[in-house]
């Protein structure tokens, strides 16, 4: 009797065993599906946010002057990755978003890209609030509006900047840009124009920016800001994309020149524009930017003189 009871106590019926195994399978599948759905949703949110940032940048591509600062605030800690790709006719500006979820950064492989945008920032910018401003680049015609993206966590202190730079930056009223008086700033990045004891050194006369032992060459204030706010890899890549745009715009202006000359409107800039197009095409690093700029300057002077048949 005792023997029989012991056997019954230990025995699990087949029905229970079957239910446990199938139940476990269903539960595992459900957990797997939920995990996948959460991952997909994170990717969707990242892609949607990146696309929305791109759309938000459209109004910045407008004008003739430096624009007001635009502020983007996210509900959670966010990293905006700057992905520059120079392949193709215009290259692509990619944006990737990674957000903190349960104290971990979400994995990002979805990249939203735009051919008509040029964003200057570090490899990634991290924070909840980001500041964006833009400045048109003329080389010698308007090429694009360059966009500068910084995190509110990084405070830029401009020391001994030339007056027009000071005026421009103070008009921006950007909360992470300070002029000369930079006491007790957290995460301070000093940008010096006349001294050497700074993270970023600008030689305004020689048109160079020294940053992390790298020397970036620039022409125009718009490209100076680009060198200040971005890393070397981003700067070189975006500069080449800008040159690709100059190449295409030069061809359009050259075509326009011969098109309107049929109506008797001559500007004689055809050869100079071919030279600019070729020079822009062959630029591989910022070191050679000054030679492209010299050609651009010559074209600008010729175009300005010809008030009757200006090309731009």
């Amino acid at each position: 009797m005792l023997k029989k009871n012991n056997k019954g106590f230990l025995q699990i019926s087949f029905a229970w065993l079957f239910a446990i195994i199938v139940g476990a399978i269903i539960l595992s599948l459900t957990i797997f599906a939920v995990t996948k759905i959460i991952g997909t949703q994170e990717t969707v949110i990242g892609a949607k946010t990146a696309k929305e940032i791109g759309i938000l940048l459209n109004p910045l591509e407008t004008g003739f002057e430096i624009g007001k600062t635009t502020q983007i605030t996210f509900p959670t800690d966010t990293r905006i990755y700057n992905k520059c790709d120079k392949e193709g006719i215009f290259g692509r500006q990619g944006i990737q978003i990674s957000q903190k979820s349960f104290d971990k950064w979400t994995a990002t492989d979805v990249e939203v890209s735009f051919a008509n945008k040029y964003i200057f920032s570090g490899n990634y910018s991290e924070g909840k609030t980001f500041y964006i401003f833009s400045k048109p680049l003329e080389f010698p015609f308007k090429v694009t509006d360059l966009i500068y993206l910084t995190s509110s966590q990084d405070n830029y202190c401009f020391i001994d900047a030339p007056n027009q730079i000071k005026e421009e930056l103070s008009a921006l009223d950007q909360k992470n840009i300070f002029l000369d008086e930079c006491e007790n700033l957290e995460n301070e990045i000093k940008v010096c124009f006349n001294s050497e004891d700074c993270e970023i050194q600008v030689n305004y006369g020689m048109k160079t920016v020294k940053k992390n032992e790298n020397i970036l060459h620039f022409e125009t204030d718009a490209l100076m800001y680009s060198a200040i706010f971005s890393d070397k890899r981003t700067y070189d890549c975006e500069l080449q994309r800008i040159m690709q745009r100059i190449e295409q715009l030069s061809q359009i202006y050259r075509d326009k020149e011969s098109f309107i000359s049929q109506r008797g409107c001559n500007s004689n800039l055809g050869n100079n524009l071919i030279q600019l197009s070729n020079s822009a095409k062959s630029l591989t690093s910022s070191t050679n930017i000054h030679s492209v700029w010299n050609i651009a300057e010559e074209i600008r002077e010729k175009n300005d003189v010809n008030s009757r048949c200006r090309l731009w």
Partner: protein
Amino acid sequence: MVNNKAQLKIQQMAFMLMAITLFFVLVGMFVLVISTSNLKQTAIELQEKNALSLVSKLANSPEFSCGEAFGSQKINCIDADKLMMLKENLAKYENFWGISNIEIIKEGSGTTICNLVNYPNCDIIKLYPEEISSEYSNFVALCWKDSFDGRIYDKCEVARLMVGYNG
């Protein structure tokens, strides 16, 4: 007799588990269909937002803007001569602005599409041949260099810049 009863119970259990599995699969598929349709809607909304924000700014982009070609710097002014040359180089600008179509239509005129033969005596500069389902528009000045008796002059007309997207 005991064996038959047990087998029946197993069958009942198996059917029940299959029914539960099927139920969850159907619920999962339902959720997936809803989230996919939401995703499509989001994509359309983003295209719409892009078109809306571009339509007011596109005229000032370098490929379109007049610059100082017709006197002083003008806002919302499109250089028609440059645009015709852009049209000739359009293959390079595929997907450049992320929209389906761009058209510039002279106000109060006909429906003649511009090409290099009939320009500037035409009405519509159509950049992309694609048909569009939705669009936004904005008024702009359309300017070009014209000549009369061998004299060059600037001519401007009011036009509508239309930006189309597939929604």
